[in-house]
């Protein structure tokens, strides 16, 4: 069986849309059709393919980015603890008075952290004598869970007009429990993931959350988070998920002081949040801890704040019941942690960055005529005219033309980073379309 057939079996046979969902979607469309007052093709088209200006931190290639965080979906339905409220409201007051580390256009927020994530390491006894059975390598595979510590550096751009970077250096794996280690030894101590592996990735489509979408009133902010109405802060319903999203918002990001204060205030009112009091973060620094236990998933997530600065110092995730992550281990066994060591504004993505990191990244629409009402091919690129010229030469923009590109001109809506590229020459092409010419590179 090849990988495509395996993939085709994955999540196969899910039920079709509920009739009422389909009916609601159709009714919504018919309402939109009813309200379409003017014929199609008139007025200013809204470029639907324009990416949201600000996306979630780590929106792309996130596989390589985030520490192992709780995956809670259905939270425990605990009560609001008054003590949590007192402590978090104090943290909120501190947050409101702190000038946050605020990058500007063209800059990056650099953060350095130490973290650890769970990894399963598989092994087939057959591999030792000869290569793995290529058709069924998994049949005889044993699997052990290890925590892989890592040093992580992230450069998150001010907005998604530039590409960011994440560099992770993996450390020596450690078994999550003595049993896991014993199983590995019994199998002859096969090779484990190597320490010192480096993953260095350029990120596109990342940036900070849009402060204009983030109310500073805690009740309204909570409503918007719980309604999953903020771009980049989405997920299924449930209090455990909301707690996860709160962690997402505080980590490796920039938010105005008033919004940070609102996050702490709304967390104070969140049912199920537990006060841990004074605790140490994963590298031993003292802080104030809170936690949320997700009974459904059998995990617990702790956030640790510096009460003097309100900064998120670190976090931990552990299992609360044996078997929650597919291995037997005592409750409290850690399955991930992070300690945030440094956060500062920088002007570049640093030395030795992978290709593309730090370069401008914009959406480019390549049009086949000098009109906004014609077919468009969308690409992402550093140089709009070069990107479209390539598509013209490949016959993608207009298949009827030979392998050559016409003269092209790049325009934009005033203030927008999206480039619209038309055949033609000179700034007059843009002005006729009520657009602004973009300087040629």
């Amino acid at each position: 069986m090849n990988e495509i057939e395996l993939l085709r079996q994955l999540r196969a046979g899910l039920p079709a849309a509920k009739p009422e969902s389909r009916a609601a979607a159709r009714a919504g469309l018919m309402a939109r059709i009813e309200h379409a007052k003017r014929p199609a093709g008139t007025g200013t088209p809204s470029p639907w393919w324009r990416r949201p200006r600000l996306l979630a931190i780590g929106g792309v290639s996130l596989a390589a980015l985030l520490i192992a965080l709780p995956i809670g979906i259905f939270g425990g339905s605990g009560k609001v603890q008054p003590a949590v409220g007192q402590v978090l409201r104090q943290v909120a007051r501190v947050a409101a008075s702190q000038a946050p580390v605020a990058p500007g256009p063209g800059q990056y927020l650099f953060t350095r952290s130490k973290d650890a994530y769970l990894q399963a390491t598989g092994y087939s006894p057959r591999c030792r004598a000869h290569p793995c059975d290529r058709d069924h390598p998994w049949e005889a595979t044993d699997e052990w869970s290890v925590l892989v510590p890592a040093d992580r550096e992230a450069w998150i751009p001010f907005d998604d007009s530039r590409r960011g970077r994440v560099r992770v250096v993996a450390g020596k794996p450690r078994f999550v429990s003595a049993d896991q280690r014993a199983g590995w030894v019994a199998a002859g101590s096969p090779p484990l993931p190597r320490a010192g592996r480096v993953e260095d990735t350029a990120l596109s489509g990342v940036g900070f959350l849009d402060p204009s979408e983030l109310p500073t009133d805690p009740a309204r902010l909570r409503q918007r988070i719980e309604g999953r109405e903020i771009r980049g802060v989405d997920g299924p319903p449930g209090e455990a998920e909301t707690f996860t999203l709160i962690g997402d918002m505080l980590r490796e990001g920039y938010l105005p002081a008033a919004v940070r204060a609102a996050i702490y205030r709304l967390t104070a009112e969140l049912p199920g949040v537990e006060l841990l009091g004074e605790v140490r973060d994963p590298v031993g620094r003292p802080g104030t801890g809170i936690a949320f236990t997700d009974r459904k998933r059998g995990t617990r997530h702790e956030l640790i704040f510096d009460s003097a600065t309100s900064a998120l110092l670190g976090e931990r995730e552990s299992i609360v019941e044996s078997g929650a992550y597919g291995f037997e281990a005592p409750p409290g066994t850690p399955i991930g942690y992070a300690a945030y060591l440094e956060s500062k504004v920088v002007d570049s993505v640093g030395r030795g960055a992978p290709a593309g990191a730090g370069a401008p990244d914009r959406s480019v629409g390549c049009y086949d005529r000098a009109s906004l009402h014609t077919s468009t091919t969308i690409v992402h690129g550093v140089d709009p005219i070069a990107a479209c010229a390539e598509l013209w030469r490949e016959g993608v923009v207009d298949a009827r033309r030979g392998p050559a590109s016409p003269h092209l001109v790049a325009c934009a809506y005033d203030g927008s980073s999206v480039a619209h590229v038309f055949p033609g020459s000179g700034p007059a092409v843009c002005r006729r379309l009520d657009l602004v010419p973009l300087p040629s590179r």
Partner: protein
Amino acid sequence: MGHHASDSDAIAASAATAADFAAVFDRHFGAIHAYLQRRIGRDLAEELSAETFLIAFDTRARYDVSRPDARPWLFGIATNLLHRHRRHELRELRAYARSAADPVLDAFEGVDARIDASSVRRHLVDALARVPAEELDALLLFAWADFSYAEIAQALEVPIGTVRSRLSRARARIRTALAVEPAPAQPQPTCDEGGHR
């Protein structure tokens, strides 16, 4: 509202009579919803499939009516919407890879095999979570929507050569993760599996 042989006829007619656009919804809603649901689960799929058709209607003037089948265009819109929820999609894939319980299946009553003991399935899911977004889009349009290379190229608005290379990179990543073939950089074949990152 008349009967239209092709999507492009319906879309062209909808320039004058907007209600003709409903034919496009009736033909494709099921497929769009099924694809979105498979990628991000029931709740978000309901929202995004409805939004896909609203966006399609609003931008129908840009539709290239020389293309009779609107599926690539609609799946392209749906794919753009999915990108806003990339974090959610990855989180659920990682949850599945680590706990063997698929949050997407978990939302349905009576769907069997919620706890999937197969380690190959988990390695597959783990590998999917590590495939870059643009490769994942091509791969899942191919495997789950049965798109041809040309249709994927139209949906993602990239040259067909790019589709070919994205698909082959994605498939190679997955094969490596499943240890069907050893990674070329490794001198000795091993079954050391990749990270659950």
